[in-house]
Every structure is written in structure tokens, then in C-alpha cells.
């Protein structure tokens, strides 16, 4: 209203938000890179384990790298190699390994409002590098700073990708060469849950988001008995419906009050 123009936080932005808005695309890239670094803790043990398991399954180095570079999706790679070890029919391996990645379509859809305006070329590499980590990091950043421009958003995404995807490859190679995973008592198995929880927590900023997350947790535990991660495909849509439903209810209530 009568706020002087030289205040640090114009039009209701927090100092952090104004700082984010002032970054050049290159600075955004650096920012995304730095913020993605903790994920190396996740990718290193996971990727090394893939190298070990795939070698044990009898795959040669080009094939292992084929999985890691072309598929670039940890859970799906483990599923494929596990089924190869069990001598499943090729079609079963293919269908199961792709099914594990169905969540990627949901990530793709949820990024449309933020990155849909990018050039087709940019959308092509963004799709290739859309992994759990780059998605989770990018979406929390975009929601926290909704006024970033497209170049800033792409820069941040690229930074997050550069700090994660090459390490997935490196970790796989280390697993193949060293032939052993990181000792279990380092408890790095839990780096993945911790980093994901750390990303989700700041997103819980409305009752609708909290309700969606709660349904996701309860749903995934209740439907955990379903085979090969299918529980996720019951729990996640239920959670998203819950979030949208609570949002509609709250809008109606606010509307009634006006």
C-alpha cells in the first residue's frame, strides 16, 4: 500500500524470493547444482549396488552402461536385472521395468505449467534427465519461487541434473570395477528416504498439501502388499485427488465467507 519502494521485500516477496528472482540463468544453474549435491549420498550407494548386481547377473560392461545411460532410472534398472536373474521371459522384463517408471508420466505432467514453454529441444533433454531427484528438487524450487522466468527454471533444472546424472554413471562404474557396495553400517540406504522427506517437508504449506501427503503415506503402507510397486499407483492418485478435493472445499468455504 504505502510501502516505500526501496524496501528489501517488494510486493510481499521474502528476501530469499527476491534473491532467487535476481539470479541470472547461469547463477540458477550453479544454485541448482549446489542444492543437488546431497543427492550424491543417495546415488552413490544405489548406483554402485546396481553395478554389483548387474555384474553378478552376468551382464557385460556395455550392457550395464546401456542400462545406466539409456534407461537412467534406478528402480527400473534393478527390476529388469532382478527379472533377468530369475530368467523371466523378455516381454515380462520389458513390461515390468517400464511399469516401474509410470510415475515419470505424472512428473512430466506436473512440470508442464513450469517448463512447458521451453523449446522442443530443451523439453527433449529435460525429459531424458527427469529422474526422481531432479524432479523433486525442481518442483519444490519452482513452487517456492513461482515468479522465476523460464530461463531461470531451465537453468536450475540443468544444474540439478549435472550434479546427479553423471554421478549415477560414475557410481555404476565404481560398482562394476570395485565389485563391492559401500559398507552397510554407513546406513546410506536411508539417505534416499531422508533427502526425499527433506524435499517434501517445505512443500507442506497448505491443509490440502498436508492432507495429500498423509493419504500418500497411509495409502502406500496399506497397499504395500501389492506386487512390484503397484501400491504407489493406488496411493499416489488417491493422494492427488485428496489434495485437489481439499483445495476445492477450502475455496468454497472462503467463497461463502466473502
Amino acid at each position, binding site marked *: 500500500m504505502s510501502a516505500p519502494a526501496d524496501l528489501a521485500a517488494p510486493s510481499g516477496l521474502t528476501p530469499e524470493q527476491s534473491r532467487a528472482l535476481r539470479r541470472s540463468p547461469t547463477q540458477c544453474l550453479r544454485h541448482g547444482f549446489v542444492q543437488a549435491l546431497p543427492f550424491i549420498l543417495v546415488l552413490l550407494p544405489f548406483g554402485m549396488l546396481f553395478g554389483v548386481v548387474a555384474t553378478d547377473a552376468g551382464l557385460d560392461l556395455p550392457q550395464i552402461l546401456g542400462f545406466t545411460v539409456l534407461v537412467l532410472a534406478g528402480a527400473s534398472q534393478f527390476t529388469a536385472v532382478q527379472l533377468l536373474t530369475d530368467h523371466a521371459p523378455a516381454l515380462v522384463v520389458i513390461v515390468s521395468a517400464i511399469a516401474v517408471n509410470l510415475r515419470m508420466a505424472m512428473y512430466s505432467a506436473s512440470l*508442464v505449467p513450469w517448463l512447458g514453454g521451453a523449446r522442443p529441444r530443451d523439453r527433449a533433454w529435460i525429459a531424458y534427465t527427469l529422474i526422481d531427484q531432479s524432479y523433486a528438487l525442481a518442483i519444490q524450487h519452482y513452487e*517456492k519461487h513461482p515468479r522465476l522466468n523460464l530461463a531461470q527454471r531451465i537453468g536450475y533444472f540443468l544444474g540439478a541434473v549435472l550434479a546427479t546424472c553423471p554421478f549415477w554413471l560414475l557410481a555404476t562404474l565404481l560398482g562394476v570395477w570395485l565389485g563391492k557396495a559401500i559398507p552397510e553400517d554407513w546406513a546410506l540406504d*536411508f539417505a534416499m528416504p531422508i533427502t526425499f522427506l527433506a524435499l517434501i517437508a517445505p512443500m507442506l504449506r497448505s491443509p490440502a*498439501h498436508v492432507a495429500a501427503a498423509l493419504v*500418500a503415506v497411509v495409502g502406500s*503402507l496399506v497397499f504395500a502388499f501389492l506386487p512390484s510397486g503397484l501400491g504407489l499407483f493406488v496411493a499416489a492418485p488417491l493422494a*492427488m485427488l485428496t489434495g485437489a478435493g481439499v483445495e476445492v472445499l477450502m475455496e468454497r468455504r472462503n467463497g461463502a465467507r466473502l
Partner: protein
Amino acid sequence: MTGYSDATIWLIILTVALGTYGLRWSFLGVFGSRPMPLWAQRLLRYTAVGVLPAIVAPLVVWPAATQGQPDPARMIAAVVAVAVGVATRNVLAAILGGMATLYTALYLMT
């Protein structure tokens, strides 16, 4: 060694790679800057909070490292990570808080 021919394995790798890329590209590639219907936008706002907790919750309650036995150290660490994240809105602080809690709890409990 694997019981599959090299050609079969490469067929599997390439098909899974193409299928996965197709899923990743799907909406981003097709929709582009065309607006999504409002109801879809409303649903998709909850993708991250709907998918990521559903991936993580079973790992927290039944960790693979303990052969699926619930582990108090890991559960406390998960709670601390969420609490720090909600309180500070800072991702790095939440990760550090969670991992520090995990190591402290594991050290005290073993």
C-alpha cells in the same frame, strides 16, 4: 551366462529405454505451452506431495537394510527430517538434521 542372447538383452535395454523416455516426454512434449484443463492443473499441483511420500513411507517403516524389520533409529531420523524441514523450510538443514539423528540414534542403540 545370463541364459539370454546378447541380442535379447539389447532388445530389452532399448525397449525399456524408449518406453521410459516416452513416459518422461509424454505430457511435457505433447502439451508444451498449451494450457492444461483446470481440473488437471488442480490435481497435478499435488503430484510431488502425492508421489514422493508414497515412495518413501514403506522404506521408512520397513527398511531393506534391516530386512524389513521396523527400526526405531530410522523412524526417529525420518520424523526429525520432516520436522526440521517444516520448521526451517530449508532442504539442506532437513537432510543434515535427519542424517545426524540417524547416526546418533544408531550409535546409541547398538
